[in-house]
C-alpha cells in the first residue's frame, strides 16, 4: 500500500518534470523569435532580406505572432499525448452536471 502511494507520487513528479521541460523549451523559442530576433538583434537582422522586407521587420510585425500560434498548439498537442501516457486525462463526461465539479473544489 505504502509503496503504491510512493509510486504514484513518483509518477506524478515525473509528469510534472516532463511538462516543465517542454514549457522551458517553448519559452526559449518564444523569447528568441520576439525579444531577441525583433528587438535585440533588430539592427543586424535588418540587413538580411526576407522576400520583400527586412528579416527583423518580418519577425517584429508578422513572424513572431505566427510562431506564437504554433507554440501554443504544439504545447496542446504534446500535453494531450503526455496526459494519455501518464493516464491523467480527464474523463470526458457527457451529462455530468458541472456544479459537482466546482463544489468539491479545493477548499482544503
Amino acid at each position, binding site marked *: 500500500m505504502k509503496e*503504491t*502511494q510512493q509510486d*504514484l507520487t513518483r*509518477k*506524478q513528479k515525473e*509528469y*510534472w518534470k516532463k*511538462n*516543465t521541460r517542454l*514549457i522551458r523549451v*517553448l*519559452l526559449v523559442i*518564444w523569447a528568441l523569435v*520576439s*525579444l531577441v530576433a*525583433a*528587438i*535585440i538583434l*533588430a*539592427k543586424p537582422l*535588418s540587413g538580411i532580406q*526576407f*522576400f*520583400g*522586407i*527586412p528579416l*527583423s*521587420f*518580418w519577425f*517584429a*510585425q*508578422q513572424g*513572431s*505572432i*505566427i510562431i*506564437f*500560434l504554433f*507554440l*501554443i*498548439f504544439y*504545447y*496542446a498537442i504534446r*500535453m*494531450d499525448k503526455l*496526459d494519455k501516457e*501518464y*493516464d*491523467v*486525462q*480527464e*474523463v*470526458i463526461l457527457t451529462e455530468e452536471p*458541472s*456544479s459537482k*465539479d*466546482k463544489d468539491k*473544489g*479545493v*477548499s*482544503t
Partner: protein
Amino acid sequence: MSVEALTLTLVVITFAIYLYIGWRSKVKDTSNFFVAGNDIPAAANGAAIAADWMSAASFISMAGLISFLGYDGTIYLMGWTGGYVLLALLLAPYLRKFGRYTVPDFIGDRYYSNGARAVAAVATLFISLTYVAGQMRGVGIVFSRYLQVDIIVGVLIGMAIVAFFAVLGGMKGITWTQVVQYTILIVAFLIPAIAISLKLTGNPVPQLALTFSDIAKELSVLQVELGLTEYVAPFTNMSALNVFAVTLALMIGTAGLPHVIIRFYTVKNVRAARWSAGWALLFIALLYTTAPAIGVFAKYNLINSFNDQSIEQVREEAWVTKWEETGLLSLEDKNGDGVLAFSSDAAVNEVVIDPDIIVLSTPEVAELAPFVIALVAAGGLAAALSTASGLLLAMSSAVSHDIYYRIYRPNATEQQRLKVGRIMIFLAVIVAGYFGINPPGFVGEVVAFAFGLAAASLFPAILLGIFDQRMNREGAIWGISVGLAFTVIMILLMRSPQVFGTETPVIESFLGINAQGVGVVGALLNFVISFIVSRRTAAPPEEIQQMVEDIRVPKVINKTG
C-alpha cells in the same frame, strides 16, 4: 439607401441579436453567472477571449498607431499577442484545474489569506475600471461619428444594451454575445483590408502582400525622401531599451489581466483550457497580422494621394472633404504654392492625419460599397461592447464573489449571491458609463496603468503559486505590495503633468524605461522580494502544498489501483 440609413439598420440588427442572445441565456445559479457553467466549447471560448481582448482601440486605432510608429509598432503587435503564450503554458491549464470563479479566489486560497484575497480583488477592480472607461467612451465615439448622435446618448445606448444581457445572462450571456461580436468585428476588419491589399498590390491576402511585395520598402524610401522616419528601420521612434521593456510589460500584463484569465474557467476541463488559448490567439492573430499590413498600405496610399498634389484636386475626392469635416484630417497650403507637401517639421507640414483615419477611411479609399462602411461601424461597436462586458463581469465578480461572499458573508445562500452578482454588474455598468461620459483627464494614460499593475501584481503571484510549491503567504503579500507600490509611484511620477497637473514630469523615466514599460521592473521586484521573503519564513501548510500538487495534473493519478 444612404450610408447613415444603412449603418443605422445594421446597428439595430446587431443590437437585436445581442439582446436576443442575452434573453436566451438567462441564468439561475452562480456557476452559470460567473463561469457559464464550465460548459463553453474550446473554440467558442477562443472567439469570446478574442472579442474580450480586442477593444475599440485595437479595432479602430491600432493599425493607425502602427503606421505612425513604423517598425516600433511591434510593441503592440508582439506585446498584445505574446502574453497568450504565457497564459497557455504557465497559467490557464492550472487555473482551470483549480476550478473556481475568479483570480482573487486563487490568490486567496493559495496563500491562505483573506488579506491577499482582498488585495487581489482591489487590484482586479482597479485594473478593470481603468480599462472599461475607454470602452464606453469608444461606443459613444462610434455612435457620434457614424450616426451623428451625441456622444452621451451613444454611451447611454451602449450601457442599456450591455446591462440587459450581462445582468440577465451573466458570463453565459456575455460569452455567446462575444462569439457573435467577434464574428462581426473580424469580418468588418478583413473586408476593407483585403480590398485595399488587392488594389495596391494585386494580392488579396494582406499578410502575404506585406511580406512578398515591395510596398513596405517603397513606403520606407518615400518616407525618407519626405524627411520622415525610415519605416522598416527599428528604433526610429523609441529607444531599443523602451521597445524591449514596453513589449515585455504588455506581454506579462496581458497574462495578468483578470478579465482574460477568468475566461479560462468557463471551459469544460484542463485540456479545453490549453486548446482555447490556441483558438484565442488564432482569432486574435487574424486581426493582429492584418493590422500592420493595413498600416503600410493606407499610409503609402495617403502619402501618394496627397504629396505634391494640388489641394483643389485632392478635395475633389468625396472622402477627403468628409474626413476634413470631422477634423481627423487637415490640409493647409502653408507656403501658398498650390500643392501639398509632407514634412517632419510641424511648421511647414501641410497634411495632418489622425491615426484613426487609417482604418476608418480604408473602405472609402478602396472604393467599397456603403454597406462596408456600415459594417465597419457595427464592427467598432461590437469590439467596444464585447470588451466592456467582459470587464464588467470581472468587476462584478471581484465585489460580489470575492469580497461579499468569500470575505464578508461566507454563509450567503446561492440566491443571495446571485442577486448581489446581478446588482454589482448593474452598478459596474453605471460606473463605466459615468466615466465614459466624463472621462478623467488622464484617460489616455490609464492603459499603461492597467497593464503595469497586472504585470507587477497578479501575474507573478499566480505564476509562483503554481510553479513554486514553497511560496508562502508572507512572500506573496510582500511581493505584490512592493511590485504594486513601485509601479504605481513610478507611473504617477512620470505622468504627473496629466495626473497632478505639474508643468513637467517629476521624473522622465526609470533608468531610461518609460511609464508603459516600467511594469516589467515592478514584476521583477515582485519575483525577487517574494522569493527572498518566502525562504526566510515558514513553509506553507501541508494542505496548501497538496493543493499545488493537485492543480499540476489534470486528474490525480488513480489511487485505487
